[in-house]
């Protein structure tokens, strides 16, 4: 409502401020009137029971169309779609010894006919373009090449951030960039709930949590300075983040956003406090606006979206009902264990207005809801206003990846969405690491 009034005022100012010919003024006036009276299309997303497309296997909101951009590319993690027209994907496991792939669709039919593998001997998750460079991350380093005119980058990459400990759990170093020359790196906590003994029933939480000194947060670096060490040169930007694999910079609100994985196994460690049903739904997967110094609460607290409050983690004395004052409130609490693993904000205007300024979050899908069916294998859209505040209920943007419901075991999920990218033409790319790896291209074709 406010933005509409603002839009009209700006138009009026423009009209007053210039001496356009009368017809143009008339047309502009008509446009302004139309903008003021035509309500924006409601945000409805795609229904959970919508049929999937026979060719692509996914369902999308009305007016959107997908193609299978590339198939069998390897275990695709994060994606970027560069200004040179190529789409780059990091690979979680090497394919024929290579840790990344470049894809290109020369004839524009929505299917990539060319692919080139690169990053020999590596494997990783992070992928992005910033300041004329292609960035890639393994579990221990973030590196970059000059962005080539096309195809795979050539030569050795220059390491920008390093010194991240080698871990296995929550070890992916996904990346984001602001508009001021900074690189943000997610450093996940190699832990479930900071228990003294790893994933052991009855083991209490450590306070202060020593893991938070070097993990469980976001570190900021100079995006262009080679050889920075995490602890010596990195700036500890935000903390209390168990794993923030879903992280992106919102250029509209000029802020970092993170969706955090909640902890696992409430019922198996605390069967007196949580039923299997509660343990499937809790804790929330938390969507946050993250600022310098933000604390998202892990491991001392978690968010319960059914209560709308932060709760004390049971390893720290909580009982499922004890409210916590540690950690900031999330913007949205999603159902438990959906696994937010990708995030994207659009910069262009190829998509309809109601789909432009919010957060796209790729949920990779759960494993920790058994014996309840597994859930989450979808891309959602959270509408945000110009200030980056939630402006309505989230909707599902793309679904059907996992195949027919119910998915009782994660290995039965055909695809699991993960990487998200916006192409120079405004198309949205969605990647999956399952079933050999796939990338879809999504465009808006209109009603």
């Amino acid at each position, binding site marked *: 409502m406010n933005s509409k009034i603002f839009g009209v005022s700006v138009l009026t100012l423009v009209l007053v401020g210039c001496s356009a010919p009368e017809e143009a003024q008339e047309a502009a006036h008509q446009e302004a009137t139309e903008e003021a009276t035509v309500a924006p299309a409601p945000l409805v997303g795609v229904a959970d029971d919508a049929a999937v497309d026979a060719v692509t296997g996914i369902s999308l909101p009305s007016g959107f169309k997908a193609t299978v951009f590339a198939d069998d590319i390897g275990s695709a993690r994060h994606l970027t779609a560069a200004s040179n027209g190529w789409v780059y994907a990091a690979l979680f496991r090497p394919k024929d010894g290579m840790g990344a792939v470049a894809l290109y669709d020369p004839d524009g039919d929505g299917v990539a006919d060319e692919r080139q593998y690169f990053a020999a001997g590596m494997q990783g998750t992070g992928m992005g373009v910033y300041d004329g460079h292609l960035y890639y991350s393994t579990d221990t380093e973030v590196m970059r090449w000059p962005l080539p005119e096309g195809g795979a980058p050539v030569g050795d990459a220059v390491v920008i951030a390093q010194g991240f400990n080698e871990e*296995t*759990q929550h070890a992916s170093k996904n990346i984001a960039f602001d508009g001021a020359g900074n690189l943000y790196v997610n450093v996940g906590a190699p832990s479930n709930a900071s228990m003294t003994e*790893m994933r*052991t029933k009855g083991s209490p939480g450590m306070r202060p949590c020593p893991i938070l000194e070097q993990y469980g947060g976001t570190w900021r670096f100079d995006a262009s300075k080679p050889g920075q060490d995490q602890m010596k040169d990195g700036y500890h930007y935000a903390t209390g983040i168990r794993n923030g694999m879903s992280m992106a910079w919102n250029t509209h609100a000029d802020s970092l956003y993170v969706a955090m994985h909640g902890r696992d196994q409430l019922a198996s460690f605390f069967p007196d406090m949580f039923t299997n049903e509660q343990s499937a739904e809790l804790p929330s997967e938390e969507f946050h606006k993250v600022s310098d110094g933000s604390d998202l609460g892990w491991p001392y607290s978690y968010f319960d979206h059914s209560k709308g409050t932060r709760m004390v983690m049971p390893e720290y004395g909580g009982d499922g009902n004890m409210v916590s004052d540690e950690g900031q409130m999330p913007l949205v609490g999603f159902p438990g264990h959906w696994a937010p693993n990708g995030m994207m904000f659009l910069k262009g205007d190829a998509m309809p207005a109601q789909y432009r300024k919010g957060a796209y979050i790729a949920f990779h899908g759960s494993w920790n809801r058994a014996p309840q069916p597994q859930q989450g294998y979808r891309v959602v859209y959270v509408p945000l206003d110009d200030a980056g505040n939630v402006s309505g209920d989230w909707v599902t943007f793309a679904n059907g990846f996992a195949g027919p419901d119910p998915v*009782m075991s*994660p*290995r039965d999920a055909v695809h699991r969405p993960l990487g998200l990218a916006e192409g120079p033409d405004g198309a949205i790319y969605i990647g999956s690491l*399952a079933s050999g790896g796939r990338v879809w291209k999504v465009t808006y074709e209109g009603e």
Partner: protein
Amino acid sequence: MKANKLLGAVLMGAAFSASVAALEPQTGKALYEANCAVCHQFDGGGVPFMQPELFGSKRANAPKGAVIDIILFGSAAEGAGQSGFTNEMPGFDFLTNKEIALIATYVRTNFENNGGAVVADDVQPRRK
């Protein structure tokens, strides 16, 4: 008289134990579902890249000690991070020899495995 009462109490105790056992049968399947399925899943399918599937498992079909060790000591039995899976497995050495034998037998004779049975006496010598 006294002896009868005592016998009655013993019998009642036995009946009580039997009814509890009927509620929570100490079968390999029940123990697996209570302790292992949260990560390895009820169908033994595991979670790609995170927790190993147990289908046609090399470890489950190897000599008995391989499965016993991973239950007792968790992923530390082979060195954390050596498996290619991201999550670590805790040890379950708090379970009894019999319980571990039942779980090991269940895993070695299900999920398309044919490693064969394990008994409690196989477990004790592997404890540290």
